[in-house]
């Protein structure tokens, strides 16, 4: 069967476990040397040519044993916070009582007269 992928010799050693663990550690938010060290440790534990699932299982064990936090931290070592500390206040919806149309029209003229008087300084 024709295939575009290069043929791999059946007796060639399987590096997929190594590639998988290296890919994972490259994607971690840690220094490169620490990443390589972690990959090396997990490969040693799982075996040089172990399949990816085995190597990754060992890597996760090592991460748990070494208490490597899953979460990210800031420069001071505190967990990264995307928001400032809460400063809660109560916010209530405004009262929006409606005038009926007839009432609004009825009130319109007296209200205008009141405003005009107020502008002219009439206290009544």
């Amino acid at each position, binding site marked *: 069967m024709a295939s575009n992928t290069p043929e791999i010799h059946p007796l060639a050693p399987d590096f997929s476990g190594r590639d*998988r663990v290296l890919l994972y550690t*490259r994607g971690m938010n840690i220094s490169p040397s620490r990443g390589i060290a972690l990959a090396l440790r997990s490969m040693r534990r799982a075996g040089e040519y172990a399949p990816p*699932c085995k190597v990754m*299982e060992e890597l996760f064990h090592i991460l748990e044993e070494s208490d490597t936090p899953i979460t990210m931290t800031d420069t001071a070592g505190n967990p*990264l916070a995307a928001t400032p500390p809460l400063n809660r206040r109560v916010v209530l*919806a*405004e*009262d929006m009582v409606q005038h009926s149309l007839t009432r609004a029209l009825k009130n319109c003229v007296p209200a205008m007269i009141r405003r005009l008087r*107020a502008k002219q300084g009439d206290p009544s």
Partner: protein
Amino acid sequence: MTPPLPWTVAGNKRRIVLLLLIIIPSFFSASVMYALLPNTTGLALKGIVTLLFMLLFSWISVGFWSSLAGLYIMLRHVDKYRATAGLPEGHDLPDTFKTALLFPVYNEDTRMVAEGIRTVFSSLRRLGLEQHFDIFILSDSTDPDAWVREEEAWYALTQEENAYGKIFYRRRKSNLKRKSGNIADFCRRWGANYRYMIVFDADSVMSGETLARMVQAMEHKPDIGILQTPPKAFGSRSLISRAQQFANHLYGPIFAAGLHYWQLGDAQYWGHNAILRVEPFMQFCQLPSLPGRAPLGGDIMSHDFVESALMRRAGFGVWLAYDLDGSFEQTPPSLIDELIRDRRWCQGNLQHSRIIFTRGFFPTHRALFINGIMSYGSALLWFFFLVASSAQAMAEIFVVPSYFPSGPSLFPDWPQYFPKWALTLLGGTGALLFLPKILALSLMGWKGEAKNFGGFGAMSASVVAEVVISTFLAPVRMVFHSFFVVTTLMGSRSGWNAQNRSRETSWWDAIRFHWWGTLLGFFWGGLMYFANPGFFLWLSPIVTGLAVSIPLSVLSSRVSLGNGARLLKLFITPPDITPPTELKELKRTLRKPLPPCPFLIPREKGFTRAVVIPRVFSLHMTLISNSRVNSVQKTCRLDSLVTKALGHGPEALNAAEKIAILSDRQCLKTLHTKVWQLEGSSARKWGIV
């Protein structure tokens, strides 16, 4: 009773003048129209046509007189009621408080939003003002991929700009009350930390200098509750958006100055590119849900108009800073996107019919609610007017005129035509529509700013081209707006979709959207052509626009045509000639390639990235907080989702399932661990090769 503020007296006088300027000419033109219409078709139809004409004439008069008032202000150069009058030189701000810059986002193009924020932040940093502002990305995103993209973008921004503790990100689990609820949620959590907040749109950008001037204006005048800037369009590429950007830059400043002339401290808040005084906003401007169900009940959609009315009711002014530059926004890239947005705005504005008579609102704000309703209602009136006019034209053909009245009479009743009156009316209506454009053109020429529009010749040609495009698009907008009004009143509600800000319209989309408008155009035009060819000529601009709406919609969305127009020096705007630093920087950063990533998972696949890429997984785990212990049912459900995801890959999960996984730390951790232990094709489904 407190004495009225000085501007309220001037405002009342100006509004009375405006009312007279609208009412008197409208009555006069309606009487001319009535005299021009033949008597043969009955008084009822004649009366309806005249009444509709009067309403429409009044409506277009508002824009006309606003433009004239704007021209008056801009020529006079002195405006004692300017919101920014009397501000100190420079952009120094007090150290005693901070201002929050809010970017509400909803399933947006994350890169565009992030680069916009970077631009604003860099602009502030250049002026040494960044310590006076905190930036909040307030997400209401419901798309799991967008959620993770936003987190990644926030993290990258804080790292690259060294802005940790200055740029914040918060995603709401519930989208209660949409954008207004999003802002209210911010106020509830952190509003007390800030004296002012400046609200942005997802695609808007403002310069640091403008932000500083806004804060200074609020400090200088403590009676201002909301200060709105007039945003200028930028970044348009398609033909329609280029034309709109040109119109916005040429006619916009005069119109904004005119609005300020009438409104003064009773202006409107447009929902973004505005600064708000936080304390009164929290105390007096929170919106209730309207009684009843959507579309006219429920959450208030066009919240901004209502918030400005509430702020005014609380005794604070709402001002339009028409003279502030450095405020930008983007326009929809196509007619369809514009209409989708209008559908939402139409529902929001019609909802205002429920709150016009709210106790304590000022008359100007009640009038502005009516104005908002008329923005879409006028389309229906125009449609009715055209239908009634067509009916009148048809009746002229089929109804036999009666020249001899039934009663005793010395003379026959001959139909009379007044061509001079007809031409005067046509000329008057034309002047209302086109004179503001000519005045804006003349003003720019007179001020020597034509070079910013490609020169006076190019600017004039662009005005002609813009008028042609608007003329063809106007009937399409009319039928759609009429449809929106009718369907909203009949109970149909619009959804809340993310806005498209870049896509061109495909032929298939155009056919799907415009087929009925096209049929209407052909049917209406054909009917009039055969029944009354004389009237068909009058109607032809309308029916032609409708008949060609499919190609019009597609071609006007084309970026190539927008570029072509630019090569011909059409629709050139000041940002094209001398782009402000902020827009130049935004363009540069948007072109910058993204940093390489060892994983072959595209950035759009946010969910997959959060499950697979250790750094993104860690970031997401850090930012979500669910400390509750899950119920047995929920645990079972999440377990089954993990099994499904492992067996069939991320594509097998729907958005709700992805959100459920992303929201649960334990579930996500389990999936992450197991995905990395998959082999062969199962691993490839997750992008692990």
